[in-house]
């Protein structure tokens, strides 16, 4: 078995273990449709941030500003809608543009001015939070426009959920099967047919089960739909575009990438820009869910996003990491949060346990690397 596979299995195994423990401890409430639905809405914002963070970390950089950027995006949206009577669409476009520009500026400072990303984005973290406090004057701005609010609180109708699931299953099957055909044509080693079928059945089963569970409650939550969309897009960027290839090459060996004619600066600038955009989207989702622009929104979220990426297998040394890993990482952390609060454990336990899980996950990676397996 390949190392990446072992890791994925360990992660999923860990997740299942956590779920089993909480299901037992809460007499089954943990696995109720309602709670699962809550859980995935809770994780959506951090998971969105985590997917963008994976790209940044793979290039060997870091972005500490996204938490503040989430808050700022929500605050600006609220101010525009509540105080300036902007419509929902213009507000969203403005906020997305704002996030993109701020991300790009930080990328510019990192690659063209040579300031380490840690410092640039630490500065961004403070400055964006300051802007947010200035704009909101320290108070929550509410309520948001009704259609804006839907982005955080609405659910996809059950039928639409099933259609979406069917499309997803069809596309994944098509990709896996055509890849197999292409591999056979090029005489590359392929897995046995039985295993491919089994894999497809498991994937289809999981997608269906997921949709059935959420439909049991109210349907697929919009924030989760947004999260899945971003994950899909960024996975394609990472795995199937020039940009993605360059991102891994830069993280794997910066010098070799440079000597190969990769425009390293432009790639890193693009990654920071994308991350700014992703943070703005997360900010919109969060403020829509809260139905307010709050000066404290997104506080410490950059660290949750980094933790999600790292638990999901992204190496801080760069060059290694998968976008979907951040979703799994965020899911593990959200499960811990959710399960422990259901058990009425004090909040401090959540921090302690999440901290331990983070360290444990990286310890697992380090010891795997040592074995060289």
């Amino acid at each position, binding site marked *: 078995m390949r190392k990446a596979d072992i890791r994925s299995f360990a992660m999923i195994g860990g997740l299942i273990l956590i779920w089993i423990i909480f299901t037992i401890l809460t007499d089954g409430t943990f696995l109720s449709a309602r709670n699962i639905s809550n859980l995935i809405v809770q994780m959506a914002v951090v998971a969105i941030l985590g997917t963008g963070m994976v790209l940044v970390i793979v290039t060997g950089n870091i972005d500490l500003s996204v938490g503040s950027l989430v808050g700022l995006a929500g605050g600006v949206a609220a101010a525009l809608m509540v105080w300036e009577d902007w419509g929902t669409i213009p507000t969203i476009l403005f906020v997305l543009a704002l996030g993109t520009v701020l991300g790009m500026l930080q990328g510019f400072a990192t690659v063209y001015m040579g300031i380490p990303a840690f410092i640039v984005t630490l500065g961004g973290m403070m400055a964006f939070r300051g802007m947010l406090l200035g704009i909101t004057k320290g108070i929550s701005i509410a309520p948001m426009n009704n259609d804006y609010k839907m982005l955080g609180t609405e659910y996809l109708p059950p039928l639409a959920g099933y259609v979406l699931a069917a499309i997803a299953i069809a596309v994944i099957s098509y990709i896996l099967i055509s*890849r197999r055909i*292409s591999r056979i*044509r*090029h005489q*590359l*080693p392929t897995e046995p047919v039985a295993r491919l079928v089994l894999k497809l059945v498991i994937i289809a089963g999981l997608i269906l089960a997921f949709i059935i569970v959420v439909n049991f409650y109210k349907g697929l939550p919009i924030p989760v739909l947004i999260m899945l969309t971003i994950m899909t897009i960024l996975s*394609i960027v990472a795995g*199937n*575009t*020039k940009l993605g*290839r*360059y991102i*891994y*090459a830069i993280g*794997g*060996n910066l*010098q*070799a*990438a*440079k*000597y*190969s*004619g*990769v*425009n390293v600066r432009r790639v890193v600038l693009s990654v920071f820009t994308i991350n700014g955009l992703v943070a703005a989207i997360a900010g919109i989702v969060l403020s829509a869910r809260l139905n307010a622009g709050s000066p404290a929104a997104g506080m410490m979220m950059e660290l949750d996003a980094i933790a999600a990426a790292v638990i999901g297998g992204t190496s801080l040394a760069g*060059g*290694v990491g998968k976008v979907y890993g951040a979703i799994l990482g965020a899911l593990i952390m959200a499960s811990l949060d959710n399960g422990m609060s259901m058990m009425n454990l004090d909040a401090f336990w959540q921090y302690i346990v999440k901290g331990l899980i983070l360290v444990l996950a990286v310890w697992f990676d380090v010891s795997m690397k040592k074995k060289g397996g």
Partner: protein
Amino acid sequence: MPVLRFGFWENRRAALDKEGWAMNENDYILELKDITKEFPGVRALDRVNLRVRRGEVHGLCGENGAGKSTIIKILSGVYPHGTFEGEIVIDGVPQVFGGTTDAERAGVVCIHQELALVNELTVQENIFLGNEPTRMGLIDWNELYRKTKELLDQLDLKIDPTDKVKDLGVGQQQLVEIAKALSKNAKILILDEPTSALTEHEVEILLGIVRKLRQNGVTCIYISHKLNEIYEICDTVSVLRDGQYIGTKPIQELKRDELIYMMVGRKLEMLFPREPHERKELSLEVRNFTVYDALNPNRKRVDGVSLKAYKGEILGISGLIGSGRTELVTAIFGAYPGRKEGEVYIDGVKADIRSPVDAVRMGLALVSEDRKKFGLVLDMSVANNITLSSLDKLAKLLLRSDVEIIYAEKYISQLRIKTASTEVPVKNLSGGNQQKVVIGKWLMTDPKILILDEPTRGIDVGAKTEIYKIMNELVSAGVTVIMVSSELEEILGISDRILVMSEGRIVAELDYREATQEKIMHFATGGH
């Protein structure tokens, strides 16, 4: 560890006199007996015997890859006892070195080519790093200063012990290294290419200090490519070639030609598939090219070089390590971090190459000298590495993995790369095959000009010949090929025209028919 006191030299000299060091012609402080060291697939040293007299400066010469570095690493404990065969005898006592600390305890201290100083610490902190004088567990700064000052005075160095190392020139840093070695009470001091980073003036100072060390009874082993220095400073010279001991002679009895012959030796083997090439139109022209060191902006690595390369020929650039060859080609390619001046023309058009991005767009390709550092993303697959510089060919928006595999397979078969599949991480391949992957990466960009810097370093003989064949094929296909190499046989065996560099300048241009190893060595070592 003994402590330095005033009159350190006098004491040491007296001690050595008592041992009668200068009296006995056959008083060997160091003897290496039948040293054999093998690496996977290579025998780096083959039953080498070497004897060094007490108090002499003993030169160690040989081409790159002759085994000099290996022998130094064995002597200084980097390769510990048990990883090689043979015996190290110091003062008649066989030694067992488990590591560098053991070697230092026995009085063997090595100053490596790359300096091992901590830039942000002061001179005194560096010299006594790990060996600080303490009082009640705290560093005794006064004592530290006093001891350092004493040491620097003995070497006539006007350096303040409290200066930070980073504020010193490279030459002074080299001297601080020597002071550090002496603080460890070195009996045998090994200097490995100590002047490769120094200016002429700094070289003079260093040689002066080596002479002073000799007067004071320290035995020095001096490794250098620069024969002028060898003749200026050494008493005796030993030569290694291909891991074998060739001989030891007093310097006065050894003519320069004879020494070069000892180093270069054998006839050319049938390793080099020479093919008739026909020089066609001018492809690359470099005018008045100067490159400054990245860290030391006042030092010229390349000094006013002009050269022309033509389609249909292999241009060889020879020269010793540090002569500016690599700096020249990496700067042309836009990858050298230091400042550069001068003009580059490609097919008669002025080319403003500021980065490898520009270079690749203009049809330049550089197979760099260190493939692991600059050539490959080791964790990526063979296919991903081959296509890295030409992803535009794999479709516009989304990469097509089937097209990628087709390209990868094309170069794998064209270059005869031995790999289990296109998907294997490139780090799993042998050195020769890794090098071919780098070449494949560049061929995929359809380069007009291919520059290869040390293309066969660290790869086995069979793969070498393959790479020469590939170069010949490329020349026939109309690519301009430039090869930088420090292996003379390779330069002679493959190039159509040879440029020799020395100290940043091109000092000779030779047709391969008139060139010999002796001639190239003569120019490369600073002869006229």
